[in-house]
């Protein structure tokens, strides 16, 4: 296959056409430039027709070109094209890639190079407020599907000459643009090398979303914990860039992927830094209590009911016994049935339009809970435990981590049913083994606790006064050895 352009415009056209999918919207507009045949090529829709007409066709048709042969390209670039983003190429694969990215190509007879002109259609969704990551104090902007616009939002806010943007083309079946963003000098060189190496070695059929990309970046297929964070909010990205992390933007994706990520930061709300120290700490404490509740409340209740009822204090025991009278289901089935019902309602709520989804979740929850207790299928005490667990899941600020924590309670329930307290012990310790083994792009996932960086703990479980909490975390700098290492 021919790789480079020749001087024969028709054979060039034929080869370019053969590399482009035979689409009806591939436009080949022929014009005459001072008795020279010229073709303007673009894919209608991806390229903006108005821009092509305004910036390319209009000036070229009204021009009086004097130069001959190769010089003609130079003259067109310097005198006749209105577009600011132009370049010259002679590679046919590159031309094909530019065409499907929305650029226009100007082919001229007797020239073995083509002009590439940016006419990408930027008719994307307007900047809106994020619906999935609402904030009380933060800015109202969120990312859109337009990569350039996302980067513009970021650059407008980070006025730092060290802000670096590196572009990669990824995808085997179809190509996507990926932009790696970081602040040079703030990010640790070792971490940056790890991220770049991972991107360069990425073998992904198609990067259709940041979630797909995240899974391909993580080499552990069956790891349930997210090793990078996805966000729609520019202020979150900026905050993480300042801490020494990198962000990945993918074309046609309205979110950025922040990496590396550690376990504890998934439980830090962005509002924590806007609130006063004491109230922020209270919120954080509530969040950690919620996590423990989600993971162990139901399993502990189950174990106490089945194997260790003697551990209930007498008064509590009498309440639970009276609530469980005439319940035919064993405690495991009771809990699992309610949990599965809640998960189905939640999943259904996600798929429905927003107001209907919320209504379904609330009404469904009330109706099913009420019906189950009235039918003596579930005891009120069990319903209370399940309800507390479900409400606690909403307090986890990150959706990916919330999913993981919600999932963990199921194996814990099964272990509790099989081995009682010993089962809970096994489950907890197994989680610790897994978590301490994990690394996110060279950073220990359980840092700053393991390895211990005591100063970084000021923004892990607690949120110290901002002066301390906003210091660059040492745990994100593996190349700067701690004195205790």
């Amino acid at each position, binding site marked *: 296959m021919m790789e480079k352009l020749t001087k024969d415009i028709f054979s060039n056209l034929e080869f370019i056409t053969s590399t482009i999918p035979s689409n009806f919207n591939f436009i080949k507009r022929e014009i005459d430039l001072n008795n020279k045949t010229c073709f303007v090529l673009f894919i209608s829709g991806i390229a903006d027709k108005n821009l092509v007409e305004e910036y390319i066709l209009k000036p070229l048709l009204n021009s009086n070109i004097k130069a001959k042969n190769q010089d003609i390209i130079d003259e067109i670039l310097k005198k006749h094209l209105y577009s600011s983003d132009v370049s010259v190429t002679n590679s046919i694969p590159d031309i094909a890639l530019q065409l499907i990215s929305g650029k226009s190509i100007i082919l001229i007879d007797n020239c073995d190079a083509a002009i590439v002109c940016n006419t990408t259609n930027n008719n994307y969704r307007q900047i809106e407020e994020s619906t999935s990551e609402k904030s009380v104090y933060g800015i109202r902007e969120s990312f859109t599907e337009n990569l350039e616009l996302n980067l513009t939002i970021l650059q407008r806010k980070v006025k730092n000459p060290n802000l670096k943007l590196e572009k990669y083309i990824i995808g085997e079946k179809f190509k996507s643009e990926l932009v790696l963003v970081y602040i040079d000098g703030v990010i640790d060189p070792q971490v940056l090398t790890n991220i770049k190496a991972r991107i360069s070695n990425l073998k992904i059929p198609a990067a259709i979303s940041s979630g797909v990309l995240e899974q391909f970046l993580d080499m552990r297929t069956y790891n349930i914990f997210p090793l990078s964070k996805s966000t729609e909010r520019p202020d979150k990205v900026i905050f993480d860039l300042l801490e020494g992390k990198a962000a990945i933007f993918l074309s046609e994706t309205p979110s950025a992927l922040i990496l590396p990520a550690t376990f504890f930061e998934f439980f830090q709300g962005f509002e924590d830094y806007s609130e006063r120290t004491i109230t922020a700490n209270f919120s954080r404490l509530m969040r950690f209590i919620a996590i423990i509740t989600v993971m162990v409340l139901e399993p502990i209740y189950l174990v106490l009911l089945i194997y*260790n009822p003697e551990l209930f204090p007498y008064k509590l025991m009498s309440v639970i016994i009276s609530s469980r009278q005439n319940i035919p289901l064993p405690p495991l089935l009771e809990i699992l049935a309610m949990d599965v019902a809640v998960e189905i309602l939640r999943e259904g709520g996600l798929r429905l339009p927003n107001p209907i989804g919320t209504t379904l979740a609330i009404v469904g929850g009330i109706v099913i809970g009420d019906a189950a207790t009235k039918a003596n299928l579930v005891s009120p005490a069990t319903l209370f435990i399940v309800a507390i667990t479900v409400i606690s899941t909403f307090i986890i600020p990150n959706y990916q981590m919330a999913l993981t924590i919600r999932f963990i309670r199921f194996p814990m329930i099964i272990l509790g049913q099989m081995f009682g307290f010993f089962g809970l012990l096994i489950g907890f310790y197994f989680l610790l*083994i897994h978590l301490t083994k994990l690394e996110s792009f060279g950073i220990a996932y359980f840092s700053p606790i393991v390895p211990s960086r005591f100063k970084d703990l000021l923004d892990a479980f607690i949120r110290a006064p901002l002066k301390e909490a906003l210091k660059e975390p040492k745990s994100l700098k593996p190349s700067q050895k701690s004195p205790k290492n």
Partner: protein
Amino acid sequence: MFKINNQITRNQYMFIIQNSIIGVGILSLASGVCKVAKQSGWISVLVAGIYPIYICIVAALIYRNTNYNEFLETNKRIWGKFLAYIFTIFFFINFIFFSSFVLSGFANVLVFTTTKFLSPHTIIVITVILTYFTINYGLTNIGRLSELLFYLTILILIIPFYFINKGHITNLLPLFDDVSSIFKAVPETFFAYSGVEISLLIIPYVTDFKKVLSSGVIGSLITIFIYTLTVLLTINYCGHILTSKLQYPLLYLVAGADLPVLSNFEPLFIFLWGNKIFQTLAVGGYGLSYTLSKIIKKSYNRCCLYSCLIIMFVSSMLVPEHTRTMVIDKVEPYLVGFILVYSTLTLILSYFKGGKTFEKN
């Protein structure tokens, strides 16, 4: 086969030492010492703390004198090839007993407390599988886990503090009734303080050798503090007569509270302490697999599997508790004696055989 990483930080070394000592012994320690030293039992625990401190200091000095070569290499250059292998086999046997005592004790305690419906053998099998997962990735992972679980130690310490006002100071008086009995009670603490021998194996894997001696000593001191305090609080709450008659006085102590949601602290304590036991077992399992891999010259991963099977088999033989106690009483003084004699002689010889003999390969 998994990729093994053995590098640990100085902090991790400290936490490994701290973790390796705390085990099943903490539950029955007060009983043993009170039988001999009565209300002064906690002083015996404090005095016996010299053993882990001594081992940590000697291990650090041996490796300092011998240029931080690996355990077997150091032994070969000090003792010659034959004796080096003999000593490695002794260490291997030491870790078999240590791990099996811990595991069988753990199973016995669980069956005695919260998990009455399970057979101790089931507990042993499941725990061994978990131990295999912990040790199979090498010392780095054990170091990280030790670091993490150290924070649980603080919680373990907080629970007995709940009872600080519940006892009576007269239970601890007179402080020194019979000084000789205080020293006579020291052998009762041997099992509780065993596990520290791991320092003789792992120091070459610490990334920074500076202050490795103080890290070991601090790790030991933390455990000595915890042991002394728990024994002190137990005697303060129960008195020495009741303490000496109980099998697990510390469990009796934590079960003595009256709480609103759970009837007492026992399940919470078992949960926290159980995690420490897994970690102690991991340290023992690592020592066992490490020495086995040096003896039979097979890969560490494969030796992990063999070690776990050995621990499982020996632990099953040590159920029920009276069998285990009987074996500990017979074996433990010899093991401690061997470690003390070996480490002292090795330290002396390391001073004599200094210089180029120990240049790294």
